[in-house]
C-alpha cells in the first residue's frame, strides 16, 4: 500500500485542522460498574437468549434525539446472550442497578488527578440514549467525574475536557437477517471516557496525545489487550464539519487517517463548489425503472422484485469522483442506502458494468430524462426497501450542497472511514433515577492525590538514576510493565541491575518469541532462579536455559540447573579437573612451562562447559602449573 505523505504539502494551519481525541478504556476492577458480575469476557455457549426491541422515547427535555430516531427506523430486533453465572438480571435489564462500584470511582479519580483535572463535588449517573441495541436498557449509564485537565505535548498543551465513568456496551456477536446478536458479558464493565478539547492541530500530535493518555492509563488498574481500549477521533477543517471517527485501533495509523479524512473533506468541498456552479439539483421523484431492465444481464437486478431510480441533475462525474483512496462519493451514498438493508447501489458514473449494458444505461437515462451532466442512481431490492434506500440517497445527495456534513464514521483498517450514523446531539442524556447521586469529598480526592501511581515518564527517569540503568533498558522496563518485577528482584537479591533489567526487558521476550511459553513463570520462580546467580551457583548465561526447562517440566530452578548440568563447579572440583588435564598434558607443560597456560586454558574451559568462572579457572590453572613445575 502506498501512502501519500500529505504532511509534505498540506498546510495544516492554513486548512484550519482541528482534532479532538476520545479514549475509552476498560478498568480492571473486581466487579462491574453497577452489578457484582466479574469483568471477564466468556466464550462459553450462552445459557439464555433474550429477544428485545427498543423504542425511542422522550428524553428529559422533551426533545427526541436524531441519532436515536435513525436507529429506530431500522426496526431491528436484538438478541442477547446471557449466562446463569457470568451475567445477572442487571445486564438483562431485569433488575435495577446496584450501587456504584467504588473501586471504579477511585480509579477514575486517580486518572483524573494524573491528567491534572478538577474532580466533581457530586457525581450524577446519567442515561445516555443508545438504541442500537448495544445496551439492553436503551441507554448507557455514564457520569462526569472531572473536567479542566491538560497534557503537555511536544507541540504544546492539550486540554483534557472531560473524564467520564461509564458502562461498557454489550458485545456484538453477529448480525443476521433476524437482527443483531449481542453478548452480555461485556455490558457493564467500568469504562473511562477521556475527551480532549478540539485543539490538537497536527496529525502527529494526535498520535502523541493518544500515546501519552495510554501511558497514564497503564499506570493504573486498567485492562490490557485487544478491545480493552478504543479511540475515537474528531476531525474537522475550517470549511468542513466535525466528523467523529469511531474505533481507531492502531496509533501508528492515526496520522494517515487524519490525512485521508482531510482529503475527503477537501474533495467534498470541491464537489459542493462544482454543484453550485452547475446549479445542480436533487430531483424529488423516485422512478420505477424495472421496465428498463427487462432482459438484463445483471443477476442482482434480474432477481430483484423492484428496481428504483433517482435522478441527480448536474451530478455526472461527481458521484464517481474519488474522495478517499478507493472510495467515491457514490460510496458515501451507498453507506446511507445500506442502513435500509440494501447491499449497495449502482450509479451511472460507474456504468456500464456489473452486467448492465450501455444500451440499458442509455435507456435508463432516457427514461429518467437524464442528460450528459446528470447522474442516475439505481437500487434493486424489494419495493419498499428500494424506495427507502433511495430516499436515504436523496437525503445524502442534498447534503452535498453543504459540503461536509457532521457524521459519525467508522474507522476502516487501511485508514479510510465509512458512514455510520449522524452525530448524536446532546439531548441524549437524562438522569439515571435508580442510582443516588454520589458525593466526592475533598479529603477523599486529596488522599488519592497523595498516593498517585508514578506516571511512566517519572518511572523511567527514576530507573535510570536509582539503578544506573541505560535509557534504553529503563524505557523497555516501563514499556513492558516490568518495573514492579524488577524492583521486587532488586529488593530481594544483590545482583547487577543491568543483568536483571536486560533479563526482564529482553531475554524473557526472546524466549517467548522463540515459542517458549512463560505463562507459568511467576515472580517467585524468577527470584529463585536469580538466587542461583546471586550465589554464584550458575553463570548468567545459564538463566535462559533454566527458565525454559522450568516452564516445560514445571521443576524448580535448582532442579533445572542440576538436570541441565549447569551448576557451577566448586573450586576443589575445578582443581581436580585441572590436575587431570595437566597430568594428561604432562609433556607439554614440562616443555613450555608457564607458556602452556594459553593452550591449557582452552582445553580446560572446553571441559568445564562454562560451569566455572573464567577468572577462577585462570587462578587455579596458574597455581596448579606452578605447583607441578
Amino acid at each position, binding site marked *: 500500500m502506498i501512502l501519500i505523505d500529505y504532511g509534505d504539502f498540506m498546510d495544516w494551519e492554513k486548512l484550519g485542522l482541528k482534532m479532538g481525541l476520545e479514549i475509552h478504556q476498560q478498568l480492571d476492577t473486581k466487579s462491574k460498574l453497577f452489578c457484582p458480575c466479574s469483568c471477564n469476557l466468556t466464550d462459553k455457549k450462552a445459557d*439464555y437468549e*433474550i*429477544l*428485545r*426491541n*427498543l*423504542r*425511542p*422515547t*422522550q428524553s*428529559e*427535555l*422533551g426533545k427526541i434525539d436524531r441519532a*436515536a430516531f435513525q436507529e429506530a427506523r431500522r426496526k431491528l430486533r436484538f438478541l442477547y446472550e446471557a449466562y446463569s453465572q457470568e451475567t445477572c*438480571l442487571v445486564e*438483562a*435489564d*431485569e*433488575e*435495577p442497578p446496584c450501587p456504584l462500584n467504588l473501586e471504579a470511582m477511585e480509579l477514575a479519580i486517580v486518572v483524573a488527578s494524573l491528567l491534572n483535572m*478538577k474532580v*466533581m*463535588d*457530586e*457525581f*450524577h449517573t*446519567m*442515561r*445516555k*440514549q443508545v*438504541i442500537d441495541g448495544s445496551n*439492553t*436498557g*436503551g*441507554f448507557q449509564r*455514564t*457520569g*462526569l467525574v472531572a*473536567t*479542566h485537565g491538560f497534557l503537555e505535548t511536544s507541540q504544546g498543551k492539550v486540554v483534557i475536557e*472531560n473524564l*467520564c465513568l461509564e458502562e461498557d456496551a454489550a458485545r456484538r456477536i453477529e448480525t443476521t437477517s433476524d437482527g443483531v446478536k449481542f453478548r452480555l458479558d461485556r455490558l457493564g464493565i467500568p469504562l473511562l471516557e477521556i475527551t480532549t478539547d478540539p485543539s490538537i492541530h497536527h496529525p502527529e500530535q494526535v498520535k502523541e496525545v493518544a500515546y501519552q493518555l495510554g501511558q497514564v492509563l497503564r499506570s493504573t488498574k486498567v485492562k490490557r489487550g485487544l478491545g480493552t481500549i478504543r479511540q475515537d477521533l474528531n476531525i474537522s477543517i475550517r470549511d468542513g464539519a466535525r466528523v467523529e471517527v469511531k474505533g481507531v485501533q492502531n496509533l501508528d495509523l492515526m496520522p494517515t487517517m487524519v490525512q485521508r479524512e482531510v482529503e475527503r473533506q477537501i474533495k467534498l468541498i470541491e464537489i459542493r463548489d462544482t454543484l453550485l456552479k452547475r446549479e445542480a439539483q436533487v430531483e424529488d421523484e423516485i422512478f420505477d425503472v424495472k421496465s428498463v431492465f427487462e432482459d438484463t444481464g445483471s443477476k442482482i437486478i434480474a432477481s430483484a422484485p423492484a428496481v428504483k431510480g433517482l435522478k441527480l441533475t448536474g451530478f455526472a462525474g461527481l458521484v464517481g469522483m474519488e474522495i478517499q483512496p478507493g472510495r467515491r462519493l457514490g460510496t458515501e451514498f451507498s453507506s446511507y442506502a445500506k442502513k435500509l438493508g440494501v447491499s449497495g447501489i449502482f450509479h451511472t458514473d460507474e456504468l456500464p458494468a456489473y452486467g448492465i449494458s450501455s444500451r440499458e444505461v442509455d435507456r435508463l437515462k432516457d427514461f429518467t430524462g437524464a442528460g450528459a451532466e446528470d447522474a442516475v442512481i439505481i437500487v434493486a431490492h424489494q419495493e419498499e426497501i428500494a424506495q427507502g434506500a433511495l430516499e436515504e440517497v436523496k437525503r445524502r445527495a442534498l447534503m452535498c450542497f453543504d459540503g461536509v456534513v457532521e457524521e459519525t464514521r467508522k474507522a476502516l483498517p487501511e485508514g479510510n472511514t465509512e458512514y455510520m450514523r449522524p452525530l448524536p446531539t*446532546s*439531548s*441524549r*442524556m*437524562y*438522569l439515571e*433515577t435508580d442510582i443516588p*447521586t454520589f*458525593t466526592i469529598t475533598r479529603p477523599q480526592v486529596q488522599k488519592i492525590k497523595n498516593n498517585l501511581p508514578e506516571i511512566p515518564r517519572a518511572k523511567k527517569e527514576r530507573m535510570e538514576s536509582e539503578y544506573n540503568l541505560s535509557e534504553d533498558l529503563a524505557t523497555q522496563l516501563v514499556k513492558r510493565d516490568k518495573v514492579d518485577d524488577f524492583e521486587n528482584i532488586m529488593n530481594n537479591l544483590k545482583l547487577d541491575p543491568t543483568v536483571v533489567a536486560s533479563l526482564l526487558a529482553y531475554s524473557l521476550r526472546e524466549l517467548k518469541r522463540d515459542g517458549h511459553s512463560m505463562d507459568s513463570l511467576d515472580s517467585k520462580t524468577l527470584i529463585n532462579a536469580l538466587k542461583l546467580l546471586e550465589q554464584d551457583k550458575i553463570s548468567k548465561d545459564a538463566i535462559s536455559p533454566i527458565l525454559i526447562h522450568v516452564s516445560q517440566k514445571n521443576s524448580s530452578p535448582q532442579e533445572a540447573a542440576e538436570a541441565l548440568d549447569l551448576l557451577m563447579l566448586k573450586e576443589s572440583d575445578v582443581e581436580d579437573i585441572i590436575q587431570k588435564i595437566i597430568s594428561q598434558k604432562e609433556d607439554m607443560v614440562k616443555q613450555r612451562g608457564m607458556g602452556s597456560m594459553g593452550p591449557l586454558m582452552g582445553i580446560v574451559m572446553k571441559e568445564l562447559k562454562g560451569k566455572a568462572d573464567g577468572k577462577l579457572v585462570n587462578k587455579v590453572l596458574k597455581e596448579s602449573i606452578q605447583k607441578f613445575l
Partner: protein
Amino acid sequence: MNYRGSAKKLLESSGISIGDLITIEKDDVTYQGMVLDRSEDADDQHIVLKMDSGYNIGVNISSSNLKLVEKGKKPKLDLKPLTIKEDPAKKDISIISTGGTVASIIDYKTGAVHPAFTAEDLLITNPELRDMANIKGKAICNILSENMKPEYWVKSARSIYDEINEGAYGVVVAHGTDTMHYTSAALSFMLETPVPIVITGAQRSSDRPSSDAFLNLLNSVSAAKSDLAEVMVCMYAGSDDTGCYLHRGTKVRKMHTSRRDTFRSINTAPLACMKEGEIEILPGAKGYNSRGTVELKLNDYLEPDVAFIKSFPGINGEIIDYHLDKGYKGIVLEGTGLGHCPDQLIPSLERAADYQVPVVMTSQCMYGKVNMNVYSTGRRLLKAGVISGGDMLGETAYVKLSWALGHSEKLEEVKKIMETNIAGEIEEKSSLDYFLL
C-alpha cells in the same frame, strides 16, 4: 423548587431560579450550566447543573460564586395535544389509568420515576394503539400502586361499569404492578362483565427505550377486543419482548421484584397467550365466559376493615387479639404448609369465632391447597371455626373476604361465600401442571 437550606438561600440571594444558565466560580475552577432542580431527599450543600455536554453535575456551594449568564425557562415536557378522529370501523376500547409505572415519567421533584401520565399521554407515547381501536382514555386517579386502597378498587369498578354501560367493547386498566393482583381480584368479585377487562402495567418505566409498557398495552388492547369476557391481568410471559400472558384476575400474583415476567398464574394455567396482538387461548385454560354471555353487574360493597396476617414461628395470640379489639370484621391468616399456625394462637382464634369474626386460612406456600384435616393442629383450627381458603391465594382471599363481608355480616353466610367459587378463584382439581409455571 426542591432546594432547601443553604443551597436555597444562595440561589435566592443570587436571584437565580431553575432553568437559568449560570456560572459557578470556585477557587480553582468555573462551571457553566443550566440550573436543574434537586431531588427532595438530597442534601442542601450542592447545586445541580446541566452542562452543555448533557451531563448533570452537583457543585458544592462552599466558597462558590454564582453568576447569572442568561435567564431561562424551567425545562418541562411539552407534549402536543391530540386530535383523535373516531373510526367507525374500529372497536371502542376504554383505557382507564390509575397511575404507576405503565404511566410514568421522570419527575424533577424527587429525581425519581413518578406516575405523571394521563391516559392521553399514553396515546401520545404509544401512537400505535390508535391503529388498533378507537381509544378513549380516562384517568381516575394518579397514585402509586402501593398506595392503592379498597376505596380506589370501588372507584375503578364503577368507572369500568360506566365505560361498559356506555358501549366500550373492552376495558384496559393501567395500574402499578405492586398491588395489581389485589385490584384484579377485587374487580373480579365486584364486576360481572360481558366484555374483557384487562389490567396491565410495566416493570420498566415507560420513559426508557426498553420499557415493557408498550407491548403490555398493545397486547392488552388486543385482549380487550377478544372473546374472553373476564377480568384478566396482561403482562409479559417471559423475559423476551415476544408476548404476554392473560392471567385470571383471581389467580395471579406478582412473584418477582423486578422481572418483566413477574406475574404468574398460581394453581392454574394462564388463560391465553398474546403475541403481536394475536390471541391464543391456551389448552390448559379453564372454562371462561364468552363475550356477551353475562349481563353487566356491579356488586361494589366492600368491608375495608379486614386484616391479612402471616403466621410465623414466634407469633402469639396478641396479634389476633389486637385486631379483634380494634374491631376488625374479618381476618385472613396466611398459615404454614397445609394451613397451620402455632398452637398458642388457637385461644385467640376461638375468641374470633365467639366475636363472629370470620378467620380464613390460606397457605404461605402459595402453591397447593389448604387442608386442615391431615394434622391435629389443622383439626383443632377447624374446630375453632377457621374457614379453609382452599387453593386461593392469600391476597385473593383477603380481597374476597372484604367483598363477602360487604354482602353479609353473618358468619355462616360469609363462610359459604368464602367456600364457593365466585370468580374462578377456587379450583377444585389440582393439576400436575400447576407448579412453578
